Structure formats: structure tokens, C-alpha cells
């Protein structure tokens, strides 16, 4: 059995390719800092979100990150602890560390989205469990603790039994987390396109699909011996899982879209929001970015060119990156669809507008968060024993 052990032997000095990650991270941090500073000084005023489109880029990125994080961990734990995939188990520290960094990024981003983030603790003290956000926060907290513990154990290489228990516990927790994050939108009766029981389910499938691609990406990038059969088997397996999840998800979404659009589906507001996704000013983000680059290209690669290592890496990367188009398309078009026609003209202000396009400030904050993530990740790769090492070594 190949051991995944930390690479203590590696020297701490000398440039490595992975160092690019934290270097880029620092650059991004610096670039993003201006936006972050504005955010801290002027609150949400500099952001493009307003009152009629209260959530935007940040919430979309948050959901995206949650998908990646929870999706990859769910799949990982499922495959490792339930399906006993030994190959995958070899990159446990890497997967856990990746998930942990992504989770931190997600939390910072969502904190930035709060009007009073200094009061985040209210959610613990004054919790209202009718609210999906309460669940989200509590579950996320639990998940964070769990993940931190897992990561700790994995990095130390001790407590295998406990790790397994935690891994299994993380399964229902992750499942709940993903369903709750979908329900945040799903329970909003005011927004018909969100308000379907399918939405949490879609979140689940999407999270798994994006998670699968993320795992695939991690394997294609960091697997020590890419010539090995184990690698081929693993990547093929992951590609298939990701591919089918994407196809399945897209199929279900297609069916839903059909029923919503058929004769207006009886709910003009819902149809209008969907129309916006499909044929609004940002149609390309759905058709080209999501369907084209995010589904068709990767799926073709996953099923046809899966043997080509580079293509596979590309497919996985494309899929991972473009999933943000999905969350953006879930969050924004629904909010820019007016609840009451003519409201945005009734009393005018940039914060009472239905035209939402993420602005520089929002992108800068995202850049900052990604910079932070990259810095952490890069440093982790460098200083923590997270990378798999060759069996031979």
C-alpha cells in the first residue's frame, strides 16, 4: 500500500513551482487591498449591490466556494470512507487542506457581505433556527471545527481511527450544509425561480460535480506519479463521476427550465428570471461560460480525451473555474427581476437600481480573498506536509 507521507525531506529554500501560488497570492492581496480598505472604511457603500439586488458577486462566490469545498470533501469522504477508494485516500491532507482554505475564503467573503460583520456572533447568541442562514452558520462552524480537527490529525499523521470517524461524521454534516445553502434560496417564496424544492437538490448535484472536478484537478496537478496505473484509474474514475454529475445536473436543469418556460409556466416572474439567464444581457455567462466551457468541453474531455493528462487537467480546471458562472446565474438574475414593475423608477438611487453588474470594489474584495487563499495555500504547500510524495521515495 502506497503511503502518503509528508515531504519533510524537502528543503525549505529554493524556488518551486508551487511558490508561484503564494507569490501570486501576495500580488492579489496587494491589488485587492484597496478594495478591501474601502470596504472596511465605507461599509457596503462602494459595492455595486443595493437594496433591490441585495446579494451579488460576493454571495455568488461564497456559494461557489462552498460548492467546491463541501462538494470535494463530500465526494472525497464518500469515496474514501464508504467506497473505500484507497488511491484517493492518499491525498487526504491535500484535499482537507484545500477544503479548509476554500472554506476560510468563503467565510471571509460572506463576512464582508454583512452590513455589521462585527456582530457576526449574534448568530450564535440570538440564533433563530427558522432561518436558513442560522443553520448555515452553525453548520459551517461545526464543519470548520471538524475540518480543522481532520486536517490536524491528517497532517500529524496520527489518530487514523478518529480521522475516519470524523470523516464519516463529515458526510451528513456536509450533506446538510449543502442542502441548507441551497435552501437559503429555496425557501424564498418571494423569488419564484429560487423557490423550488429542486434548488437544494441542484445545489447538491452541482456541489458534487464541482467537487469531483476539483478532486480531479488536485489529482492531475499534484499526484506524485502520473505515469502510474493507479493515477489513470483514479483520474478516469473521477472524470466519469464528474462527467455524469454534470450531465445529470444539466439534464435535470434542462427539464426544469422547460417546465418553467412552457407557456410562461404560470409564473411570469419566474419565467422572466429564467429568460434573463438564458437570453438576458449576460446570456454568454450561461451559454458560453457555463454550458460551453463548463459543461460541454469538460464532459467531452472527461468521456473522450480522458487519457490525455493535460487535457484532463484543463477540463477539470475549466469546470472548477466556470462553476462560479452557475452560482452567479442563480443569485443575480433572480434578484434583478423586479418584484413590482416600476419600483426602481419610483425612487431613484444607485442602491435602488435593478441594474446590477459587479463593480471594481466587489472584484477587488474577491481578489483580496483569493489572494489571501492563495497565500495561505501556497505557504501551506510549502511548509505543511500536505503534498503527496512518490511511493518510491
Amino acid at each position, binding site marked *: 500500500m502506497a503511503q502518503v507521507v509528508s515531504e519533510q525531506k524537502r528543503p525549505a529554500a529554493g524556488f518551486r513551482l508551487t511558490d508561484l501560488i503564494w507569490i501570486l497570492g501576495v500580488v492579489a492581496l496587494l491589488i485587492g487591498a484597496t478594495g478591501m480598505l474601502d470596504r472596511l472604511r465605507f461599509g457596503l457603500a462602494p459595492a455595486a449591490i443595493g437594496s433591490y439586488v441585495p446579494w451579488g458577486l460576493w454571495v455568488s462566490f461564497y456559494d461557489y466556494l462552498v460548492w467546491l469545498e463541501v462538494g470535494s470533501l463530500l465526494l472525497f469522504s464518500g469515496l474514501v470512507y464508504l467506497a473505500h477508494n484507497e488511491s484517493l485516500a492518499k491525498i487526504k491532507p491535500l484535499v482537507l487542506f484545500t477544503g479548509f482554505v476554500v472554506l476560510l475564503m468563503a467565510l471571509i467573503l460572506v463576512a464582508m*457581505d454583512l452590513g455589521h460583520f462585527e456582530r457576526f456572533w449574534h448568530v450564535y447568541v440570538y440564533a433563530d433556527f427558522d432561518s436558513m442562514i*442560522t443553520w448555515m452558520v452553525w453548520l459551517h462552524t461545526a464543519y470548520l471545527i471538524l475540518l480543522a480537527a481532520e486536517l490536524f490529525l491528517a497532517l500529524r499523521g496520527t489518530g487514523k481511527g478518529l480521522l475516519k470517524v470524523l470523516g464519516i461524521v463529515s458526510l451528513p454534516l456536509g450533506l446538510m450544509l449543502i442542502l441548507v445553502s441551497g435552501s437559503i434560496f429555496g425557501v*424564498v417564496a*418571494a423569488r419564484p425561480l429560487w423557490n423550488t424544492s429542486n434548488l437544494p437538490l441542484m445545489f447538491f448535484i452541482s456541489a458534487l460535480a464541482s467537487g469531483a472536478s476539483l478532486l480531479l484537478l488536485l489529482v492531475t496537478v499534484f499526484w506524485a506519479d502520473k505515469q502510474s496505473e493507479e493515477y489513470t484509474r483514479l483520474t478516469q474514475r473521477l472524470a466519469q463521476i464528474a462527467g455524469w454529475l454534470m450531465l445529470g445536473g444539466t439534464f435535470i436543469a434542462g427539464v426544469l427550465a422547460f417546465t418553467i418556460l412552457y407557456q410562461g409556466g404560470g409564473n411570469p416572474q419566474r419565467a422572466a428570471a429564467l429568460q434573463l439567464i438564458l437570453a438576458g444581457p449576460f446570456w454568454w455567462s450561461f451559454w458560453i461560460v457555463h454550458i460551453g466551457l463548463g459543461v460541454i468541453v469538460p464532459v467531452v474531455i472527461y468521456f473522450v480525451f480522458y487519457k490525455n493528462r493535460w487535457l484532463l487537467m484543463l477540463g477539470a480546471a475549466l469546470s472548477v473555474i466556470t462553476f462560479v458562472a452557475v452560482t452567479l446565474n442563480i443569485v443575480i438574475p433572480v434578484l434583478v427581476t423586479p418584484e*413590482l414593475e416600476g419600483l426602481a423608477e419610483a425612487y431613484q438611487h444607485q442602491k435602488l437600481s435593478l441594474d446590477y453588474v459587479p463593480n471594481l470594489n466587489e472584484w477587488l474584495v474577491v481578489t483580496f480573498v483569493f489572494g489571501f487563499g492563495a497565500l495561505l495555500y501556497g505557504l501551506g504547500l510549502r511548509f505543511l506536509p500536505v503534498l503527496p510524495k512518490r511511493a518510491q521515495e
Partner: protein
Amino acid sequence: MAEQEKLTPHSTASGAVSRRNFLGALAAAGAVAAFEQLAANPQAVLAAYEEQIVQGTLGQGRSSADLKALDVLERMRLELLRALQKPASERRWVMVIDLRKCIGCHACTIGCVAENKLPPGVVYRPVIEEEFGTYPNVARRFIPRPCMQCENPPCVPVCPVNATYTNAEGIVEMDYERCIGCRYCLTACPYSARVSDFGFTYTEELPVIQGLLGTATADDYERAPNFEYGKQYARQGRASPVGNARKCHFCQHRILEGVLPACVTTCIGRATFFGDANDPESLVAELIARPNVLRLREELGTEPRVYYLK
């Protein structure tokens, strides 16, 4: 002397007052009911008017003084005082907006902004304008949109910190100090009745120069406190309500003082009515029993406490 002739009185065809019309007139009591009487013995007054309708004598030979003893605002204010005598839980505040009387003046919008010292980008009661038809058969409609104070408010359960809740009188309140500004409630309100305070002021970045008043004095009025929820919120830095969700609160701070909501008193169309629907003699109780009453997006089951008359 020349022939003297009175002009023919108005033809019955166009002048006859239908029972419906009449009841309408009665209910908008400024026009018909002398409130003293109504309060003392509504049945008797009603009966008298009923008789007049039946006999078709309504509006004839009655002096205007009889017909409109009180501004409807005064009637409602007196009803408000009456309602305040009851325990809070027995009151049911409702608002009624008669779209036939709303002239789209936006006085309510601005009155509310002024009352609550709302900063740029915050509005509790916008008035939506619509045009229909084809020239020359055109119509315009104006729809004021306060918070509906839903009986079943979707904005409340979504709040993770209980910063918003329905109080004893049915008003959906905010606790500014508790709100974390997640804006979940904004997405959940089907009427876009919640907004976020992004911390702007009207006078920021305006000149401060010798010879001009300048921002230092000019912002006095917007820095002065509002009295939302019976507290004093002076606009300072990033303190609440900056960063919070905000919404119409039926001017609770005024109601408890015996003053009608700001949008009601300033309504020059007298299109906005307010009162305790649990008081069967109140104007609003009458109005919401009309056949032309409707509520916005009723299908969502929110049970708004704001009614519209069409």
C-alpha cells in the same frame, strides 16, 4: 322684468347616487358623517343616511357643513386615540390605500423620508407609476408601496438573529442593534419593502468654503435624530441604522403618541387611511370590507395588513 329661469337641476341619469356610491361616501367619512354622531350612535346615523338613499334625497338640500363635519384625518386620529385605550394585543393596525384617490404626488414618499430621516438610497414608501391604454384612451395609475406589515411576513423567519419580528400590535419591527446586515430579509420580502442603509448622507462631499453655508451646518437636519421605534437615532459614522436593513414601521413612534403615520397625514389625495381594524366602527374596518378591496401578491399567503381600494 325679464323672464327668470332656474337652470335645470342635474339629470337623474348622471346624478343619481347609487347605494354603493353612497356607502363609499359614508365610509370616507370626511364627506358624509359627522363624527360626533357617528361615534355616539353610528347606527342611528347610518339609518338616517339609508333612508336618504332610498328616497334619493342624499346630497340635496344638505349643507356642506352637514356633509363634511371633519377631515377624514381627524376622524382617523380620534379613532387612533380610541384604539390606544385598548391593550396592544387587541389592536390590529391596518392601512388602506384608495388608488382612485392617489394622485401620485409622492408627498407620502417624501413625508416618510423626512419623518424617518432616511438617507440617500433608503425609501420606505415609493409610489409606482404606470400608464395604460392608447391615445386618446389613456389611464395612469399610482401605487404607493409601504411595508405590508404582513400577518405572515416572509421577512421575519429568515432573519438569523431575530432582529426583526412582529410586535404585539402586528407591526413588523426592526431591532437595529441586533441586525447583522445580512440582507436575507431583503431578498425574502415579496414587495421589495425592505432596504439596506448604506451609510450615505445628502451633503457629503459638498463644498466647505468661506462665503457659503457649507456642509458643516447644512447637514444639521440630516444628522438630527429620528425617532424610529421610540428611540433616537442620530446619524453618526457607521453606527446603526447604517449597515442595517430598514423598513416602514407604520410610524409606530407616532402612533403611540396619538399621531397618525407621516404618510397618512401628508396624503393630499386623502388616499391613505390608517386605523385599528379590530374596531368595527373605525374607518379602516369599513373600508376593508368593500368589494373593491385587494391586496398585493395575495397568492403568496403573506396576508398583508395594507389594503388597496381599486
